[in-house]
C-alpha cells in the first residue's frame, strides 16, 4: 500500500467528520497562530529597536561625567586628546551642552525647541545633513560665534521655510541662522527636527559652566564599540579613581543587551503559547482514541482481509499527522492574518512604525512542529488500533 493511498484515506476520513476534525485541529490552529504572532511581534520589535538605535548611531558612545565638584574634572581638551591618541578605536567627538534656553523668533517664543551646544563634527556623528546653508564649523567654535543651525520644524514653523540668514534670540542674545537641517523625523513638535544647534563654546559661555560634562564620541565601526568604550572608561578612571563619577554608554552594547532581553522575553512568551500546542496534541490523541474505538469493526475487517499491523498503525498515524498538519496550515494562515492586524493596530493606534513579521523559518518550524505533534500523539492510538485482535474486533458492535 502506497503513501498516497494512506493520505487519500486519511483525507477522506477527516472530511467525513468535518466538524469533529475542525474542533480537533483548533488547539493546533490557535497554538501555531499564537506562536507565530508572538515571534512576529518579537521580530518587529527587534527590527524597530535596531532601526531606532541605528538612527541614533550604533557606532556612538555617550559619555556623562557627574564629576565631584570642581576639584577633579575632565577638560574638553583632555577628551579631544583622548580621541587623537586612539585613532584606531575612536574617531570623532562632540561635547554636548544642553541649554535651558528661551528662544524667541520674532515675536514668537519657541517653548518646545531644545538648544544644544555641539562641535563641528556633531552633524557627521549624528548623520544629519543640511538642506541649505552649512553646519557648525571649527571657526564658529573657536571664536564662540553666535551662529546656529536649525531643525526643519523650526524652519517651517517660525520662518515659513526661509530661515537661512535670518536671526533669532537665545536668552536675549541674537544668533544668525547659518544652516537648516534636513527633516530627520516627522518634522513635528518636540521631535529631533524641533532643535537648534550652536557652537558648544558659545553655549558653555552662555550657561556659565566652566566644564562640559556630556560628550558623544564615535568609533570607526560597530565592532570597535566595546574597545572604544573600554579606552574611554580607563582614561576616566585614571582621572577620577572612582567609576561612580562617569558613565560611558555604547549604543551598540545597549542594543545588544536589549535584543538579548527581548529574545528571552519572546522565547518565554512563545513557550507559553506553545503549551496550547501540547494541549492541541492531547486533543488529537483523545479524538484518535475515540476514532479507534468507533472503527474497531473496520479494523477487524481490514485485518481479516490481510492488513498487516504496520499498515493499520501507519494509517492512524498518518491520519493524526494530516489532521495536525491541516491545523498547522490553518494556524499559519491565521498567524499571518493576525500579524497584519497587529501591524495595523501598532502603526495606527500606537503610532509606531513597526511591522509584525513572522519569519519564514518560524513558519516552517510551526508546520514541522504541527506534523510532529500529530505523529507523536497519534502513535499511541495507532498502536492500540494495530494491536486489536481481529476476532474481537470483528465481533465488536
Amino acid at each position, binding site marked *: *500500500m502506497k503513501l498516497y493511498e494512506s493520505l487519500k484515506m486519511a483525507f477522506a476520513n477527516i472530511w*467525513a467528520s468535518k466538524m469533529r476534525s475542525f474542533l480537533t485541529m483548533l488547539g493546533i490552529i490557535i497554538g501555531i497562530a499564537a506562536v507565530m504572532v508572538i515571534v512576529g511581534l518579537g521580530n518587529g520589535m527587534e527590527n524597530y529597536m535596531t532601526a531606532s538605535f541605528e538612527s541614533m548611531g550604533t557606532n556612538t558612545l555617550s559619555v556623562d561625567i557627574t564629576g565631584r565638584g570642581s576639584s577633579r574634572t575632565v577638560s574638553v581638551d583632555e577628551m579631544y586628546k583622548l580621541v587623537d591618541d586612539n585613532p584606531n578605536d575612536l574617531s570623532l567627538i562632540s561635547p554636548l551642552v544642553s541649554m535651558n534656553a528661551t528662544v524667541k523668533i520674532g515675536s514668537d517664543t519657541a517653548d518646545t525647541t531644545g538648544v544644544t551646544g555641539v562641535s563641528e563634527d556633531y552633524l557627521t556623528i549624528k548623520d544629519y545633513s543640511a538642506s541649505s546653508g552649512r553646519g557648525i564649523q571649527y571657526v564658529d567654535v573657536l571664536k564662540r560665534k553666535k551662529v546656529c543651525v536649525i531643525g526643519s520644524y523650526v524652519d517651517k514653523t517660525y520662518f515659513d521655510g526661509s530661515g537661512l540668514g535670518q536671526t533669532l534670540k537665545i536668552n536675549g542674545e541674537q544668533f544668525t541662522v547659518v544652516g537648516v537641517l534636513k527633516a530627520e523625523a516627522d518634522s513635528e513638535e518636540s521631535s529631533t527636527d524641533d532643535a537648534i544647534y550652536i557652537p558648544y563654546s558659545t553655549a558653555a559661555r552662555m550657561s556659565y559652566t566652566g566644564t562640559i560634562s556630556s560628550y558623544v564620541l564615535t568609533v570607526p565601526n560597530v565592532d570597535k564599540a566595546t574597545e572604544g568604550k573600554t579606552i574611554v572608561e580607563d582614561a576616566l578612571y585614571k582621572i577620577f579613581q572612582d567609576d561612580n563619577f562617569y558613565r560611558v554608554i555604547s549604543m551598540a552594547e545597549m542594543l545588544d543587551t536589549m535584543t538579548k532581553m527581548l529574545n528571552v522575553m519572546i522565547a518565554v512568551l512563545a513557550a507559553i503559547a506553545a503549551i496550547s500546542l501540547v494541549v492541541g496534541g492531547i486533543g488529537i490523541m483523545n479524538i484518535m482514541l475515540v476514532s479507534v474505538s468507533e472503527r474497531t469493526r*473496520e479494523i477487524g475487517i481490514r485485518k481479516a482481509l490481510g492488513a498487516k499491523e504496520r499498515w493499520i498503525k501507519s494509517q492512524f498515524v498518518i491520519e493524526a499527522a494530516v489532521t495536525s498538519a491541516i491545523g498547522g496550515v490553518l494556524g499559519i494562515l491565521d498567524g499571518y492574518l493576525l500579524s497584519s492586524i497587529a501591524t495595523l493596530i501598532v502603526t495606527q493606534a500606537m503610532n509606531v512604525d513597526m511591522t509584525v513579521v513572522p519569519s519564514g523559518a518560524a513558519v516552517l518550524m510551526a508546520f514541522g512542529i504541527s506534523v510532529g505533534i500529530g505523529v507523536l500523539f497519534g502513535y499511541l492510538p495507532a498502536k492500540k488500533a494495530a494491536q486489536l485482535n481481529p476476532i474481537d474486533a470483528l465481533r465488536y458492535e
Partner: protein
Amino acid sequence: MTPLIEFKEVSKIYHMGDSVVIAANKISMRIYKGEFVAIVGQSGSGKSTCMNIIGCLDVPTEGQYLLDGRDVGGMNKNELAEIRNEMLGFIFQQYNLLPKLNLLENVMIPLMYAGVPVHERKQRAMDALESVGLGDKYAHKPTQLSGGQQQRVSIARALVGLPSVILADEPTGALDSHTGREVLNILQGLHSQGNTVVLITHDNSIAATAQRIIRLEDGCVVYDGPSTDPRAFVHAGRPVAEVPGEGGAAT
C-alpha cells in the same frame, strides 16, 4: 495429494480466570481442493473456533494446522495477515462491508493489501462485482443496498483475490429464506467452478447444500461424511427435527 486444509489433533483452550474452556478438543480433519464442506454445530460446539483457526485469525493451542502443507501455528501476525490476504476469502454473517466506501472500493480492499497496482485492482474488482450481478451499482454505498445484495458484494470481495479457500461464516444468517437461497446458489456455483468452499453454520438445512458435512459437538468431530447420509443430521444420538431438503433456509 496434499490436503488444502489439514487439522492434526487441533485443540484450542481458553483460560478464563480459574476455569479452563476447551473450545476445540483434538479435532482432526482434511479438506481437499475443490470440496464444498459444511462445518455444522450448535452454539458452543466449537465451530467458531474452527472457523477462526481455518481463517488464520487464530492459532491452535495444541496440534497442527496445515494450510496447503504450511504449518500456520508457528507464524507471526504479519505472516498470518499475508496468508489471509492470499489464500482466504471471507464471507461474514453481517457482510462486514465498510460503510464509507463504495462497492468497488470495498471489493478492492484485499487487492490493495496484496499490492496490486491501482489500474488492475479496479479492473479485477469490477469483474468480481459483475460476476455477482452488481456491476452497475459499483458507485453505490453498501447502505443503499438490500441485505442480499450486500452479501453478494461481500462474496465478490471474497473472490477478488483468487483465494484457495472461501470461508463462509453463517452467510445466510441475516437474510430471509429467499435471498439466503440465492446466496447459497452462488456458493454452489463457485464450488462447481472448482473453488474450495467451507461453510460454517448451525442450520442443517443450509449445511445440506454442501457435499460433505463435518458435525461438531462440544469441541469434537461427531460426524464427517457425505451430506447424503442421514447420520449427518443426527444430533446427540437422535435425529434433529429439521429434515434436510425441506423447508427454506432458516433464519
